[in-house]
C-alpha cells in the first residue's frame, strides 16, 4: 500500500480556507453573542492570507493527490476570482448581518465552506473530486439561501434551491457513472490522453454521460431550460447571499465545463458545439426578454444573470483555449460589476424587508450622487458599454468566437446586448430623470460596504481600460503534470 504524494505547499490556499472555516466556527461557539461580529474580520483577513498563498503558488504547474488535484495557472486564476468575490461578499455582509440580526459566525463559516468547495472544483482533475467540491459548495449555499429563518420567502428560496439542486446532483452522478462506464476512468487528464481513451471506446455512452453532466452543470450555471429556479431563489435569499450565489457558483460551473468539455472531451468538441450553440442562444434570449418586464430589481438581476450565463456559453460553442481564457476574464469582470450592483442595492434596501422594487431607486442619483453614479457604472458595465469591464469581457469573448467562425452566434449575442441596454438603463432613468418630491430615505454609510463599493468601482473601470495588463490571456487548461 502506497500513500499518494501530497504537495502541501501547492494546496496551501485550500488548507488555509478550510482551517479558516473551522476557526470561525470555534470563535462563534466561544465568543459572547454581542461580540460575534469579530468572525467577520477573521473571515476577510483569512481570505486575504489565502489569496497571498495562491499568489505564492502562481507559477506552479503540478498534479498532486495521485493526480486528482491540478494546481496550475487556470485554477489559480479562478481561485483568485473566487477569493475576490468572497472578500467583497464578506465586506458587504457585515452591515447586513447587523441590521437583520443574523448569526454572524455560522454565516461566515458557511460562506467560507462554499468558497472551499468552489476552489476544489477549480482544481479538480478528476470527476469524483469535482463532485465532492460541488456538493460542499451547494450544501453551504442551500443553507445560506434560507438564512433569514423568520422570512417565509427566504425559507421558500432555500427549499426550492435544495430540492432542485439535489435533483440536478442526481443527473451529475449518473453522468459521471456513464462517463466512467465509457472510458473506464474518472480522471480528466486520462480521458484527454488518446491511449487511455481507446480502452473501451464507447462513444455513445460517453456522450450520454456528457449530456447528463451538462444538465447538472447547466442547472448550477442557471442556463436555459434549467433556469426556472433562479428568480424565486434570488428574490427570496438574503441580498448579500444572492450576490454571492450569482457570482461564485457560476464561475465554478464554468471552470468544470471547461475542464470536462474542452479538455476531457476535447476530441469531440466539434460534435458538441451545436448543443452549446443552441443552449447559449436560448439562454440569452430567455434572460434578456423576461428581464424587460421585471419590476423587482432582484428579479431583474436574476434574469440578467441568466442572460450572462448565455454569453458565457458562447465560449463552449467555440471550444478553443482562447475562448475559455476569455470566458475566465469575463467571469472576473462579471464578479466585480455584478457584486457592485448588489452593493448599491444593499445600501438602498437598508433595513426595509423585501422592498426591492425598481421604483425604490427613484431620485437616488440626485440625493446621493456617488451611489447613483456607481450604480450607473455597474449597470452600463453589465450592458457591455465601453469603457467598462463588461465591455472588455464581451469584447475578448466575441473576438475569440469570431476567430473560430462563430459569426452568427456573435451577431445574436450583440443583438441581445442591445436588448439588455433597455432594462439596465431604465434603472438609470429612474435614478436620475425622475425626482422625488419627498426626501429620499436616509442611507447609512457602513464603512466596510463602502470599501467594497470603491473596490468594485475601481475594478470595473480598471478592467475596462487596461484589461490586458491585469489578466494573462494565455492560460493552459490543465497542468501538464510531472
Amino acid at each position, binding site marked *: 500500500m502506497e500513500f499518494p504524494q*501530497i504537495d502541501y505547499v501547492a494546496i496551501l490556499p485550500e488548507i488555509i480556507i478550510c482551517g479558516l472555516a473551522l476557526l470561525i466556527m470555534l470563535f462563534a461557539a466561544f465568543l459572547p453573542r454581542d461580540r460575534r461580529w469579530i468572525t467577520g474580520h477573521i473571515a476577510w483577513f483569512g481570505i486575504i492570507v489565502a489569496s497571498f498563498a495562491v499568489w505564492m503558488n502562481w507559477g506552479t504547474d503540478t498534479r498532486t493527490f495521485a493526480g486528482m488535484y491540478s494546481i496550475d495557472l487556470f485554477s489559480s486564476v479562478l481561485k483568485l476570482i473566487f477569493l475576490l468575490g468572497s472578500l467583497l461578499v464578506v465586506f458587504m455582509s457585515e452591515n447586513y448581518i447587523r441590521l437583520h440580526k443574523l448569526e454572524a459566525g455560522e454565516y461566515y463559516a*458557511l460562506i467560507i465552506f462554499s468558497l472551499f468547495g468552489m476552489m476544489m472544483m477549480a482544481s479538480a482533475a478528476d470527476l469524483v473530486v469535482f463532485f465532492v467540491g460541488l456538493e*460542499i459548495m451547494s450544501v453551504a449555499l442551500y443553507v445560506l439561501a434560507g438564512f433569514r*429563518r423568520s422570512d417565509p420567502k427566504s425559507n421558500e428560496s432555500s427549499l426550492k434551491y435544495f430540492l432542485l439542486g439535489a435533483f440536478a446532483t442526481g443527473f451529475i452522478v449518473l453522468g459521471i457513472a456513464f462517463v466512467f462506464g465509457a472510458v473506464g476512468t474518472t480522471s480528466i487528464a486520462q480521458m484527454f490522453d488518446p491511449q487511455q481513451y481507446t480502452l*473501451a471506446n464507447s462513444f455513445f455512452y460517453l456522450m*450520454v454521460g456528457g449530456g447528463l453532466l451538462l444538465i447538472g452543470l447547466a442547472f448550477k450555471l442557471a442556463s436555459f431550460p434549467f433556469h426556472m429556479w433562479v428568480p424565486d431563489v434570488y428574490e427570496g435569499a438574503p441580498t448579500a447571499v444572492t450576490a454571492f450565489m450569482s457570482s461564485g457558483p457560476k464561475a465554478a460551473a464554468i471552470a468544470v465545463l471547461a475542464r470536462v468539455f474542452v479538455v476531457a472531451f476535447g476530441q469531440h468538441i466539434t460534435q458538441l458545439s451545436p448543443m452549446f450553440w443552441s443552449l447559449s442562444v436560448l439562454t440569452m434570449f430567455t434572460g434578456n426578454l423576461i428581464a424587460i418586464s421585471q419590476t423587482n430589481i432582484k428579479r431583474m438581476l436574476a434574469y440578467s444573470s441568466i442572460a450572462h450565463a448565455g454569453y458565457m456559453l458562447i465560449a463552449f460553442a467555440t471550444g478553443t483555449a482562447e475562448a475559455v481564457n476569455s470566458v475566465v476574464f469575463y467571469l472576473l469582470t462579471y464578479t466585480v460589476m455584478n457584486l457592485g450592483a448588489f452593493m448599491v442595492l444593499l445600501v438602498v434596501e437598508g433595513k426595509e424587508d423585501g422592498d426591492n422594487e425598481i421604483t425604490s431607486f427613484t431620485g437616488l442619483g440626485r440625493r446621493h450622487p456617488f451611489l447613483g453614479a456607481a450604480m450607473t457604472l455597474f449597470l452600463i458595465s453589465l450592458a457591455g458599454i465601453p469603457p467598462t469591464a463588461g465591455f472588455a469581457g464581451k469584447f475578448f469573448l466575441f473576438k475569440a468566437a469570431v476567430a473560430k467562425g462563430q459569426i452568427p452566434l456573435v451577431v445574436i449575442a450583440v443583438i441581445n446586448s442591445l436588448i439588455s441596454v433597455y432594462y439596465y438603463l431604465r434603472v438609470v432613468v429612474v435614478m436620475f430623470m425622475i425626482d422625488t418630491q419627498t426626501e429620499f430615505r436616509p442611507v447609512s454609510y457602513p464603512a466596510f460596504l463602502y470599501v467594497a463599493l470603491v473596490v468594485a468601482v475601481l475594478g470595473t473601470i480598471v478592467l475596462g481600460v487596461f484589461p490586458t495588463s491585469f489578466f494573462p490571456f494565455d492560460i493552459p487548461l490543465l497542468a501538464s503534470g510531472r
Partner: protein
Amino acid sequence: MEMFIFILAAIASVACCLMVITQKNPVRAVLFLIMAFVAQAILFVQLSAVFVAALQIIVYAGAIMVLFLFIIMLLNLRKDEFGGDRHPFQKFAAVALAALLAFELVIVALRDGSRSPSVSLPENFGSVESIGEILFTKYLLPFEATSILLMAAILGAVVLAKKRLDD
C-alpha cells in the same frame, strides 16, 4: 440463473422506485424505498461488490430509512396537507420528458451495450480491505473532503433548526 436473478432484482428496483413516487402515503413510500434499496443491494452483489451491498443494507435501508420514518411520523402529516396538483400540465410534461430520456438511454444501451468490455477483476475485488486501501490511497482527497462536506452539512442543519434567540 444469474440472468434470472438480475432481471428479477432490476424489475423489483424499478417497480419499487415507481411506487415511491406514486404513493400518496409517505410511510408507504418510505417502505417501498427500503425495498428498492434491498433490490439494488442484490444488484451490487451480482457485480461482486459485496461490501457495498452490505453498506447499502446497513446504512441506507437500515439507518437512514429509520430516520426518515421517525421524521415522517413525528411530523404527523394529514392527508390534506399534501395539496393537489396545481399544474396538471406539468405532470404530463414530466412523464413525457422522462419517457424520452429513458428511450434515449435504452437506444444507447441497445446500440453500444454489447460492446462493453468484460474486465477480469483483481483477486480481492469488493472486499473491505481493497475498498479501504483505495479510499486511503487513490481516493484520499475526495475521502478527506467528504468530512468537510459533512461538517458544512451539520453546521447548516444546526443553523436552520435551532430556535431563534433574538427578537
